[in-house]
């Protein structure tokens, strides 16, 4: 890596010497601090279009589009832009715009806050103009300075002038200089992807467990591929992006990839983000037996022994039903554990968090069926799955996958028998996080969702599964056999496979031990009788 940089620098110097006058050479010889990766051929700081003051995001985008004329159109076709996805198999309309979860529940009526993670500007309500090119936010993914911020509450807009927010709070959000940021744009990085994806669920590591800020510059133990001092993969190394469309999907995950390595020139529409896309279907050279394991077990199952390994805790449960308590002064309560993690908030309810979490395991074939706002659900003792993970040992398409299963309790309409989309974020009278009033929050939220609400609110226990695929450990730290090959191992509940040490046939074992015991008793009895009779003689 270092030599590559040295070589590249030498080449650049030579080119500079050939092309430039003596005066220019003197300038080149004094190297600037280099925010840019040397993999680019353009220094955006030299572009006239960017040498100006930008008051808003769309102004920057207009400048970008002067050269990158088709970029906005490419973005417009992606899930990152539309937050909408039609699952071709289940025919469900999904996407962040539509689905619910058991974290902050839903986006409807909370746009201005949630869309700080949208690759666009100004999505503050259901009337956002998805066709407008300058609404695309280039900087969210292409910032290299780390200074680009889109605070919640501004509908995905950056703040360019110091602004008091919430108004009257006395808290000032400092304005950022978009010009400096625009002049240093580059490839997407772990930081740009991470700005949103590390913080899913409303905070660092909250949602995924296998993605958090520790992946910004991870050690080898946290992620063997992203290891900042080793392979140093960015997200895009695996999530190979084409025409701004990022490979990999939570809605239609590739549970089983039997297509082998994705070689250049090989036709195929496979997912380039799978392990197999690089490692092939039989990657174990020393212990060939493990390749057979790999026909039924996802690589992730053994190679990600635990998630949330980077020192950032992930949320495991969220109980909305306890939200709304106030202290004796009528103020919101925030409780923290010994490590300073929030375990209760009036705005949100009770949480549990953990690090180094062992996943749960399930047969998974890539089919995910969501419980949507339009679905009728009965409240039973069983948890309602927010997403049903398809799979069985017999369908030929399933592998045993590690999952983070997030369990919670969330608002439910007991009359209409539906989930509820409350209005949470928002500096207004009906926002739950401000006023702790479910009735107002739900009325606003459900109205925005265009769904009926009976006026009654109950809480329903739900669970949501998140296949674990990041934080791949170095091979020496992959899971040992005994983790699963044991009576109470990790795969205790997994049906359809015979697992030596976990499984036995009760009849064979009982009969076997009975025969052994009878033989033993027989010889002991026989021997005893011989001793007794020998004495008589």
């Amino acid at each position, binding site marked *: 890596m270092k030599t590559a940089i040295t070589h590249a620098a030498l080449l650049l110097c030579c080119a500079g010497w050939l092309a430039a006058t003596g005066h220019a050479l003197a300038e080149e010889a004094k190297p600037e601090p280099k925010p840019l990766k040397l993999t680019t051929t353009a220094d955006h700081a030299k572009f006239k279009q960017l040498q100006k003051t930008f008051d808003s995001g769309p102004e920057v985008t207009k400048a970008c589009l002067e050269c990158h004329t088709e970029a906005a159109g490419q973005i417009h076709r992606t899930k990152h832009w539309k937050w909408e996805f039609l699952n071709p198999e289940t025919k469900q309309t999904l996407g962040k715009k539509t689905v619910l979860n058991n974290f902050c529940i839903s986006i409807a009526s909370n746009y201005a806050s949630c869309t700080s993670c949208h690759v666009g500007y100004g999505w503050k309500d259901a009337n956002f103009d998805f066709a407008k090119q300058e609404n695309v936010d280039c900087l969210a993914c292409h910032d290299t300075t780390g200074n680009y911020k889109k605070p919640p509450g501004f509908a995905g807009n950056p703040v360019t002038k110091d602004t008091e927010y919430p108004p009257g709070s006395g808290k000032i959000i400092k304005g950022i200089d978009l010009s400096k940021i625009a002049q240093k744009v580059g490839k997407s990085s772990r930081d740009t992807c991470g700005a949103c994806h590390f913080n899913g669920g409303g905070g660092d590591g909250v949602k995924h467990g296998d993605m958090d800020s520790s992946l910004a510059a991870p050690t080898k133990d946290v992620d063997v591929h992203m290891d900042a001092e080793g392979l140093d993969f960015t997200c895009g190394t695996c999530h190979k992006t084409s025409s701004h469309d990022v490979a990999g999907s939570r809605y239609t995950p590739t549970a089983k990839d039997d297509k082998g390595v994705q070689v250049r020139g090989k036709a195929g529409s496979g997912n380039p983000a799978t392990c197999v896309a690089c490692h092939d279907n039989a990657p174990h050279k020393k212990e060939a037996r493990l390749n057979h394991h790999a026909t039924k077990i996802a690589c992730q199952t053994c190679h990600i022994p635990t998630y949330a390994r980077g020192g950032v805790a992930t949320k495991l449960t969220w109980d909305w039903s306890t939200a709304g308590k106030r202290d004796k002064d009528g103020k919101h309560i925030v409780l923290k554990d010994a490590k300073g993690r929030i375990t209760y908030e009036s705005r949100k309810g009770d949480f549990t968090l953990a690090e180094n979490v062992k996943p749960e395991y399930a047969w998974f074939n890539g089919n995910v069926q969501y419980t949507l706002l339009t679905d009728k659900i009965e409240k039973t003792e069983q948890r309602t799955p927010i997403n049903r993970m398809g799979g069985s040992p017999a369908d030929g398409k399933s592998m045993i996958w590690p999952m983070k299963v997030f369990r919670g309790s969330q608002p439910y309409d007991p009359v209409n028998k539906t989930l509820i989309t409350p209005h949470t974020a928002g500096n207004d009278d009906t926002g739950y996080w401000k006023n702790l009033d479910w009735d107002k929050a739900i009325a606003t939220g459900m109205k925005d969702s265009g769904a009926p609400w009976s006026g009654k609110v109950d809480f329903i226990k739900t669970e949501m599964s998140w296949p674990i695929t990041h934080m791949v450990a170095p091979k020496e730290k992959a899971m*040992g056999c*005994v983790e699963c090959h044991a009576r109470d191992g990790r795969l205790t509940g997994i049906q359809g*496979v015979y697992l030596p*040490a976990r*499984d036995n046939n009760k009849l064979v074992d009982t*009969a*076997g031990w009975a025969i*052994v015991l009878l033989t033993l008793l027989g*010889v002991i009895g026989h021997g005893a009788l011989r001793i007794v009779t*020998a004495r008589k003689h």
Partner: protein
Amino acid sequence: MSERIYVFKRFERFWHWSQAALIIFLMLTAFDIHGTYTIFGFEKAVAYHTTAAWTLIGLWVFAIFWHFTTGEWKQYIPTTEKVVAMMKYYLVGIFKDAPHPFKLTTLRKHNPLQRLAYLFILLCVGPLLWVTGGLYLFYDKWAAWGLGGLSLEWVALGHTIGAFMMLAFLIAHVYLTTAGHTPLAHIKAMITGWEEVD
């Protein structure tokens, strides 16, 4: 008046004791793999069990060669002669200090019940263990060998049944070594090769 005859030759004794050690070790690791207890843990137990199995196979190659070149294989030809007498002896006679119904010679060093028991082990229990064990070892090759329809569960069950039968045999076998004219006579013979006969 007793005389001493040389019944177990050097290779035979080596074969017997090394086989005994290997089988006991195989059983120790087997039930570790089976999940009955943990001594080495699954991963090591599998590795040891596999190594011991290959060693035993190697030993058997020599033993089979030895049996056929020396003609000793004939010692295992079953006979019904004196089987009933042997059973009577073990059930009744042995308690009354009755004379042993079988006269041991170098050409007939196993009594008729021994012959039957060893033959059963050699022809039934052994092959069951070897076939299922071999399949177990190469289970990742089944599909390539056209055995894709095989179920690991059934192979494992067969192997477990074999193991229980071997364990029961081992117990009875060890006990019956004490049924010579002194309790340690047979074991001594298996060590020195010399058996005392009446």
